[in-house]
């Protein structure tokens, strides 16, 4: 048994309360009322992936969102000719808001570089819980909208002349 495993066991601290704190600081959940937040925090599970394991695979429809708690995971994509690495994720990155909202296949794979622990919530649990708090749906959608918008804004700002480099790429916020 190696060291990172020992970190998470035994269960002498209250995971639910920790989850609650983590969700509060995650954009998709931060605006939700406590009643709803509690249910999400309760439904999350903590998972550990060994270095080399895949958190998810390209083409898979796992319907999970992850918050990295420790370790590093690498985003890669196989475009048929070879594997490309895009970036590394580490705590407290949140990945997969869209997977919670609707079915979609993964366009990337996420592979643990070091032993990685993360908080996982799947779509089935998320949507069943969300149905119980219908008033919070607009908040969730608003948070996501802002996120996508901010992302594209950043992209446009970074590329002074998007018309030249990536005409075809921009416009995701216009979906």
């Amino acid at each position: 048994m190696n060291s990172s495993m020992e970190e998470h066991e035994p269960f002498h601290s209250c995971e639910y309360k920790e989850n609650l704190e983590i969700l509060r600081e995650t954009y998709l959940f931060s605006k939700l009322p406590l009643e709803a937040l509690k249910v999400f925090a309760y439904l999350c599970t903590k998972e550990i992936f060994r270095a080399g394991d895949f958190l998810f695979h390209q083409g898979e429809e796992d319907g999970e969102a992850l918050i990295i708690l420790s370790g590093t995971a690498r985003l890669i994509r196989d475009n048929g000719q070879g594997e490309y690495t895009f970036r590394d994720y580490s705590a407290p990155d949140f990945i997969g808001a869209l997977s919670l909202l609707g079915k979609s296949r993964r366009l990337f794979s996420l592979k643990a570089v070091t032993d990685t622990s993360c908080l996982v919530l799947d779509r089935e649990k998320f949507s069943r819980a969300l149905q119980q708090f219908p008033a919070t749906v607009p908040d969730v959608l608003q948070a996501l909208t802002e996120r996508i918008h901010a992302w594209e804004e950043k992209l446009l700002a970074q590329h002074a002349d998007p018309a030249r480099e990536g005409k075809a790429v921009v416009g995701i916020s216009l979906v």
Partner: protein
Amino acid sequence: MKNSQKSQPVTERSLFSWVRSSSWKLQIALLLIIIVTVFARVIPLEMQKKIINESIFLKKTDLLVIYCGIYLAAVLVSTVFKYLTNVVQTILGQRALAEMRGAVYHHILTLPVNFYRRTQPGMVVSALVTELAAAGDFVGMAIAVPVTNILTLLAFGGYLFWLHPVLAAVSLSIYPIVLILVPRLQARTNRANKERVDITRHLSDKIGESISGIHEIHTNGTYTIENRKYDAIVEKLKKIRIVWNLYRFGVKTTNNFLNALSPFLIFIIGGYLAINGQLALGALVAFLSAQEKLYDPWKELLDFYQAYQDAAVRYRRVMEYFDAAPEHVVAPEDRPPYELDGSIEVQDLSFYTDSGIRLLDRVSFSLAPGKHMAVVGFSGSGKSTLALCLNQLYRYQSGQVMIGGREVSALTKKDVVQNVGTVSQSPFIFEGTIEENLLYSCSALDAFTEPEGAPTLDDMIAALQQAGIFVDVLRFGLDMHLAQRDHADLVDRIIHIREAFRDQFGEHVHDLIEFFDEKAYLYHSSVLDNIVFGATDHPEFSVANLSRNEYFLAFLDKADLTRPLLSLGAEVAKQVVDILGNLPHDAIFFEQSPILPDELEAYTLLAERLKRRRLHQLSDEDRQRLLDAALRFSPGKHKMVALPSILESLILEGRALFREKVDEDYPGIVSFYDAADYIPSETILNNILFGKMKSQHPKAQEKITQSAIQLLIQADLLETILKIGMQFRVGSKGDRLSGGQRQKLAIARVFLKAPKILIMDEATSALDNKSQSRIQNLLEHHWKGRSTVISIAHRLDIIKNYDYVAVMKSGKIGELGSYDELIQKKGLLYELVHGRA
């Protein structure tokens, strides 16, 4: 009687038809009972007279004894027979209610799906459960109550006339007045009552509004405004309630007053006659008693009238609500259902919604038996509507849909069911086992009841495999418990696998499993398992009873565990109630809770009490509950509270102490976990692992399941475990299955039915890529030529090998041809696949 009503729709039956169709034997028995009862009711009056006139007056003790004896007998008979009346009445009423509920439910199930678009399930539930109950009760009393009371009235009235006609006429003269006054007052009462209901509704709207807008009220400090609005309604309500109650009491008072007047009339006239010797004293007493007894049947008749009004209104409302006709006959009466070939011929098919929106517009195509067609198109293009017209769920308004050369709208439901199978977008799975759900589609076929028509185990396994739910079912099997006695042989083989598992996979999956280890705390096992660390056959030491076992409770005290466990239980209860208290009792919310859905209410009340009381002040029952919650708590699974480290060490100490004590006091009663023994309290999988999985994550599960399957294959146990897994109960609406599993199960059940025509309406949308392609492959290789397939496709990469592709656009088939043809044409399909140029 019953047969003539069979053809008449239940919604057109009158309330009284249920009285007529109830058991005549019982009704006649009831009448006889009533006649005896009425007779037995009059006798005491006559005896009363005779006792006074003949025995007391003439001082004859022997007559006194005889008359009193008859009196007593009459009272006994009338009491017993009154009870018998109630018995028969109840039987009649409950039978009628059950029959009504059955008939209405059968009718409702055959109503077209369209009916359910505008029907709330809650409405159907309350109609069947509550509203009809009044009607059923009425049927029970429909004959008994009026007949008893009218006969009683007549008997007493007749007796009065027999005693003294003039006096009788005077004392009965009040009833016509009651008959005129009471209904008028009642009508006013009803009006006031209606108004009261309206205002009450208004009031609850207002309260609801204030509660949902409480933020706004606090922010703006508008308490006075809201109070004013509220007070105004309350004031109105107060006024109408006063009026309503005054009328109500008015009805009662009038009735009582007039009834009380008649003894007055009897006293004044009868007294005068008695003084003048024209009436015997005994007769006057009997007259007074009989007159008094008129009141009860009279009141009961009035009540009956009101009950009838109420039942009739409710019954009519229910029947009007469901007064729709089924669109198709359920089964042919004079022939077996058709066995059609799988050809499909659609000519100029159009479909409109009720509001006139055209969803299908002159669609035409034809398919030879065994051919496959994919239907694609933008959403809203009418794809699903087409599927629903083909399988008779929607009734199309114009054009033709022929299957096997016969018009679909003219077929009976049974003809369609016999030849067509459908997997819908979000298939419904019913509560029951996997096996029951797998057989669900087949079971409606006629062949199912024939000796060799039902699917064999091999057929079922094949269907599970084809739909790709085989591994899932295997997994359910692995998660089941075995009764050791029934499976002695299997148990030995599983222990065998346990050894093989450790040898072959021990290293590979070590991280994922918490092995049973006597020296370590098991975070993925319950507190109870951690203490006992073993299993037992003895009922008093079973998991369910242990927390009530005096010996065990004494042990907990001795091990200093009682108090910390109670406090852990209290913490668990508080948190679970806080998190889940307001959620529906769905399985998905309770998977990570040691408290079960149906216990939540009790724990909610307990959590309330915990706010006011200390642990030692709780009742024994409450302490029991807390102990239960604590003993079930497993920190690896239930994350709402932490396991205090001090408790962990106490439990480990306790484990050793328990073993010592049990060995001493009850040697051999508990078999402590041992790598050489089967553990009946654990699942098959945990027995193979000799431990528990640390994570329920699909990726971890897959790893373990794959290893287990390999070993099961080696041990030739795959089929056995699968059979066990088929007994897994899927939960209400199948909510213990994932969305993908529900869809796969629906596909499996239609594959098992193997219909001539197979309609797949986005049937694989919830499945992962691999499963989708496997099912696609299967359609192409196994079902081509056997079944005609129409597949509404949500993805374009699975349609290449279909014989035809139909591209739909705004209700029309825009293009129809093979995939390659259409792509070359660069029309609609090309646009769908490659996007707009």
